[in-house]
């Protein structure tokens, strides 16, 4: 085979690969999603139909799993007033639009799209169906019938930090991070601030793996942090690999997104879990009671959306009391994760005294707080 025909073959291979991926993406989103909850025998008022789309498989034990728990929670609370349906593993991009239209065509009056990348598809479809309510997680575009909701992940990270600050023996925490975006940087900072609130000597080392999901790489990153002296780890990635690596090394770590206590009985210090269900119940009630209004919702510990759950028995009562105290403070509004003055690790004041960390400020976090080692990649 000469070089030219080899290249031709490779090009052919690339075309086939692309075709294969498209075909498989289509297969993964079945055109007729099976109703997940039992169909109630139609009561007098027609039940409200709600459709959910997830970016991952519900079996990922992480992000999409947490959303599906939320769907089940709301379905149970509202009983036969609602019928819920879901479609999993929907690729972000054009395919999502088709799935959303499909759900609308099946008579769903509320659509929940649970990943950032569904944003433009939601905007498009919402325009065409003014009598359907659209709910989009973690996005920022709204319309008359499209609103957005988000969890304050960083409050869970802050509570985890309190436990970490008390449990560390080396005063070094490790954070396995995915991509340097404000959401992740907020979590790194909140984790560090939580730890510093109980142990001022704490510092945090960060390793970026450049992926949301790459278990071998997450494991190696965890290992390199532990080699560097970190003995309590938190991750902003989607698999359980970091937790399991800590378990094997006899160190501590946390669960993320959902309760991961079963994955590492010795290492697990708690899970920063998301309870989307409280919002789903409220949103569906809004439609049922005809009080639905567009807007932005950001819920945290106060509303019961984020929390540190399943703190194990071997964590001393004194530490749990500290967590309870902070949780109560967050609930009452007397405590904020980012309280002025916030100083970054170069000494620059990022939030001046007297200023409040509002949503705009939180959405633009691009620095490490004092106590985090290193520099944010790409100088952002």
């Amino acid at each position, binding site marked *: *085979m000469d*070089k030219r025909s*080899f290249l031709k*073959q*490779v090009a*052919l*291979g690339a075309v*086939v*690969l692309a075709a*294969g*991926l498209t075909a*498989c993406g289509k297969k993964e989103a079945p055109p007729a999603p099976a109703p997940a909850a039992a169909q109630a025998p139609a009561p007098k008022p027609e039940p409200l139909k709600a459709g959910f789309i997830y970016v991952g*498989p519900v*079996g*990922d*034990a992480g992000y999409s799993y947490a959303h599906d728990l939320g769907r089940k929670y709301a379905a149970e609370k509202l009983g036969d007033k609602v019928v819920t349906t879901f479609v999993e593993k929907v690729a972000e991009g054009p395919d999502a639009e088709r799935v959303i239209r499909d759900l609308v065509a099946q008579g769903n009056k509320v659509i929940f799209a649970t990943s950032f990348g569904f944003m433009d598809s939601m905007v498009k479809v919402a325009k065409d169906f003014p009598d359907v309510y659209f709910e989009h997680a973690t996005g920022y575009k709204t319309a008359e019938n499209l609103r957005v909701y988000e969890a304050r992940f960083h409050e869970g990270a802050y509570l985890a930090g309190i436990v970490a600050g008390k449990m560390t023996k080396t005063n070094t925490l*490790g954070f396995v991070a995915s991509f340097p975006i404000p959401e992740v940087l907020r979590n790194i900072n909140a984790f560090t601030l939580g730890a510093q609130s109980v142990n001022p000597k704490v510092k945090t*080392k*960060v*390793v*970026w*793996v*450049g*992926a949301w*999901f*790459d*278990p*071998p*790489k997450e*494991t*190696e*990153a965890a*290992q*390199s*942090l532990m*080699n*560097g002296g*970190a003995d309590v780890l938190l991750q902003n990635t989607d*698999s*359980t*690999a970091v937790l*399991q690596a800590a*378990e*094997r090394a006899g160190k501590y770590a946390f669960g993320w997104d959902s309760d991961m206590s*079963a*994955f590492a009985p010795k290492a697990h210090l708690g899970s920063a879990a998301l309870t989307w269900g409280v919002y789903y119940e409220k949103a569906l009630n809004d439609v049922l009671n005809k009080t639905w209004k567009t807007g932005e919702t950001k819920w945290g510990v106060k509303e019961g959306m984020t929390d540190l759950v399943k703190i194990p028995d071997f964590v001393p009562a004194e530490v749990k009391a500290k967590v309870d105290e902070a949780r109560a403070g967050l609930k009452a509004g007397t405590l904020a994760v980012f309280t002025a003055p916030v100083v970054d690790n170069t000494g620059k004041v990022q939030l001046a005294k007297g200023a409040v960390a509002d949503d705009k400020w939180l959405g633009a976090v691009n620095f490490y707080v004092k106590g985090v*080692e*290193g*520099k944010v*990649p*790409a100088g952002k």
Partner: protein
Amino acid sequence: MNEIALLVAATLSAGTPLALAGLGLLLNERAGVLNLGAEGTMLVSAVAGFAVAFHTGSEWAAFAAGGLAGALVAAFFGWLVVWLNTNQYATGLAVSLFGSGFSAFVGLDYVGKQLPEHAVPGVPLLRDLPFLGVALFRQHPMVYLVIAVAGAISWFFYRTRAGLVLRAIGEAPVPAHALGYPVRNIRLGAVVAGGVLCGVSGAYLSVVYTPLWVAGLVAGRGWIALALTVFATWRPARLLLGAYLFGGVTMLQLHLQASGVQVPPQFMSMLPYASTVVVLVLISRNPLWIRLNMPASLGKPFFPGG
């Protein structure tokens, strides 16, 4: 000092699965068969290996199961491309996509399960050496075995008659057929042997390297192994070095970050692929290198008597 030793140790252990799979693919390609299904083969073997390790507690039984699963997937692929002469590119991609779906499906029950702990014995006496002990001699036996496998394949290719026949079939199957060699059987044998190595690599990933199972665990290492065969210009020793280079660059960026050295991680993640492109350009500039090393009938179907 100790950090450098740990980095060397991590590099060896990260390069091992790449080298195993890459050597397996080398066997295929030297016989003229391009197997783009490596990723899927490794995933199926990874879940098979994990399941066996979970139920029996034995790592070596897990490697055997991984090898067997790899052989089965490869035999199916080989039957399609060697006997039915289906297009090797399309078939390989189909096997890859099939493997990722199939492994996710059969592995559902094993997500989050724990394997029993295995102490890594390392090399007696040498493991207690300062620096070198940590860097080189506290590894899983498979890390040393892969070097032996590379040596064995090199010896087989260049020092045995059977290896010469295999390479001849990869270069020019028609004359080999005319001389009376069973081209199809030999190709099928090479594909299955390659599948065994890919399979052991998959099992190493799920049982030793990252002892857990989740869908998509292999995370692209099958494709890197494919790139490695070209990177190594189809030579076993160079492939081994390439595997350590790829593993080393990945580990280096993680360890640099953990030790506080400021290198943009995005740059380091890009480096192995960028170096592949550079090597490809360099070897393609020199037609002799490609012509001398690339199996001339790679990816082409063979019709006996056709």
